[in-house]
């Protein structure tokens, strides 16, 4: 296949960026999208140009490093996968593909397709944990957890922290991410003591980072590589109201 790629190039956070068009031949359907970029980069280096900077690591959809907006969709077309799991068989010979970085004020572009997602870490530091020191845990089976709660907590915990929810939201809202974290811990008995404090602090940090609000468009759920449900956002809303109005 031969493809035309329009890729966002930007030298660093302070420089303006622009689209640069590349034509890529010899694209194989079994290639992943990132392998396509690898191949392009090899050609660029052979020509003495600087390769396109993009993030990736595990390349099996679990580390959450990859962060491309492909043809206007975070992680590209198709449900439930990260950019690294997108295969070229979903494109046709002659297609033009536009590749942009995630765009949100709290995710500044650092170079080309790399953005800074440290805001997510700071949200986690604000309360995304259960305070338990190593050595102080009770016997694992001493606290039963209903299977359905554990399953639901696992649905939420599957979040890979890639930020596609933010990238897809018209408001650059991080609600799906925060909701997934809050729900994962809030659904388990171990997470109860800090449940309301957690939601209060994480939402405060989320706002402080400059993410927008949720408008219930559910775009986040549609692009989430782990298909995390917006029902967790509903849970967060519920927990938050109680947290600020009733809990100490």
């Amino acid at each position, binding site marked *: 296949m031969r493809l035309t790629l329009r890729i966002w190039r930007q030298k660093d956070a302070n420089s303006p960026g622009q689209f640069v068009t590349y034509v890529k031949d010899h694209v194989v359907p079994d290639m992943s999208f990132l392998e396509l970029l690898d191949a392009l980069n090899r050609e660029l*280096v052979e020509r003495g140009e600087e390769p396109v900077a993009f993030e990736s*690591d595990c390349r*099996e959809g*679990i580390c959450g490093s990859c962060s491309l907006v492909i043809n206007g969709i975070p992680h590209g077309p198709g449900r439930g996968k990260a950019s690294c799991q997108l295969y070229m068989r979903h494109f046709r010979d002659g297609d033009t593909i536009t590749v942009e970085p995630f765009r949100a004020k709290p995710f500044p572009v650092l170079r080309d397709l790399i953005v800074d997602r440290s805001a997510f870490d700071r949200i986690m530091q604000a309360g995304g944990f259960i305070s338990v020191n190593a050595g102080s845990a009770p016997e694992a089976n001493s606290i039963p957890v209903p299977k359905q709660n554990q399953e639901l907590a696992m649905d939420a915990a599957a979040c890979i922290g890639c930020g596609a929810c933010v990238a897809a939201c018209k408001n650059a809202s991080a609600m799906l991410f925060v909701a997934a974290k809050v729900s994962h811990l809030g659904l388990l008995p171990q997470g109860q003591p800090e449940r309301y404090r957690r939601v209060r602090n994480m939402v405060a940090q989320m706002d402080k980072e400059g993410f927008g609000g949720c408008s219930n468009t559910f775009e986040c759920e549609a692009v989430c590589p782990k298909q995390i449900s917006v029902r967790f956002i509903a849970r967060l809303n519920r927990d938050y109201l109680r947290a600020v109005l009733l809990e100490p």
Partner: protein
Amino acid sequence: MILDGRVPPGPLEQKWDRHRNELALVNPANKRKFHVIVVGTGLAGASAAATLAELGYQVSAFCFHDSPRRAHSIAAQGGINAAKNYQNDGDSVWRLFYDTIKGGDFRSREANVYRLAQVSVNIFDHCVAQGVPFAREYGGLLANRSFGGAQVSRTFYARGQTGQQLLLGAYSALCRQISLGQVKMYPRTEMLDLVVVDGHAKGIITRNLLTGEIQRHAADAVVLATGGYGNVFYLSTNAVNSNVTATYRAYKRGAFFANPCFTQIHPTCIPVSGDHQSKLTLMSESLRNDGRVWVPKKKGDTRPPEQIPEDERDYFLERMYPSYGNLAPRDIASRAAKRVCDEGRGVGPGGLGVYLDFSEAIRRLGIEVVRERYGNLFDMYREITNEDPYKVPMRIYPAVHYTMGGLWVDYNLMSNLPGLFVIGEANFSDHGANRLGASALMQGLADGYFILPYTIGDYFARSKRTRPDPDRPEFREAEEQTRKGIERLLAINGRHPVDVFHRELGKLLWDHCGMSRSEASLRHALEEIPKIRERFWKEARVTGGPEGINQALERAGRVADFLEFAELLCLDALERRESCGGHFREEFQTEDGEAKRDDENFCHVAAWEYRGPKERPTRHIEPLQFEFVKLATRSYK
């Protein structure tokens, strides 16, 4: 030199408890005066950094990812072992210990492995308390699955994402300590050198991957938790950025590298499909619980699998290893797959693949149960191969997955360089010549949560050294060398991207030092590696400059280290003239093709000492004493 692992005396069951009572303590007020550097934030690094901080130490944690949560531990799928015996099937600490030491083909330290089995229960309790959503039964209690190399069900799991969930647990503990100011986190920072002051590891040199700034960091101790070196093979199941740089550069500063030839080939990976491929994808070992592995009985049988009748199929694992069947350990299953493919009975393109068939499981359990157990893995497989495993059997082939070798450490997880602690996959300790499934997570967390936090205090209490000034000449020299190394890479005046050389190296190693090795193949590799290295330094091109984000430069440094390290790997494989676990020397096999150990001459750890760029490294040994188990020929038949 004969190395001493400093294994404490006494009965096996009491060694760790007694040792803990004898370890010197640091009082709480003094703990905050000690500063620890932790490099790497995977399961081992994050759990260690968090736990040390909980104890009151000042911790600086480093990772090259944008966030500590992205370390490659996150990709572990199957599960974590703990000797809980919740299934009432006869499990015990002893059995977990014995399975692990036997699985490792008797090439690990008894005392270490026993301790690992002991703390497995504490780790598991702790992870549950952190909110890791492990699978449960309807009664609300924890569920188990079976895993390779064991006849009891002791593996706990969180769907196919156990590594991710455990890492998120450790990461959340780390986040808590960062918010409390006990840990200073340095993301996007790569360690490029170790600083040794008066024989003690006292700091590191790093490059900020955003700005390119080279920095010196001094501390009272350095902990390396930088993972394994499987990517020396280029194609492996490791994340594409996993590398040997931190441990290799520590090796060049005097830390001994132990058993580098112990590399694990995982039997169930998606076969290679073409040259474009950047990594191989693992299909969790848990699939072997319900999937049956087979190839056609006839050579060159190209019929589609559904047209091959039952009696013309060879369920070779069930045939060769009736008591473990499809759950034979990884090294055994991998070699068996290679053997049938070498016989010309492999399936798929190039004949490099065997079937992993779920049709019987779907008939027995129903498609819904299969979907619930393995749905995400099936989806992953379908996306990559464009084949539906609910309808046609998966095709799998072995691939490099884990490295048992690593920096040498004693019972306290301290390397031969005092003050340098090495934990997780980066050290060599607990898995011997082959790691059992669901044991890597256990070991990383054991080291980080429950072993290092005790033993590091002993080092602090006994060595009265203080943190050196980062302006000392040792730091300046190390920084200078790092800068020169970077300049040297940027000055190579060729035209090929570094990947070209990396891939070439990987292919050479896979062919000559992969699933099976021989004296001839290893000598060949040892001849070829320097040639590739030489061409790398002439023909590579590293674009960009030393400042700012420069992924080409990051990769070049890592590939340069792989090109040196590969030689050490082959040298170790050459010198270990026996077959054991993942190290299979063709000259040393039984009549039916099983690994043949040489306990008389090789019942030891080989630890290599760096002597200089052109010098042959020195091979030291640490004899392995087996006081409590009898060395036996491993049999899974």
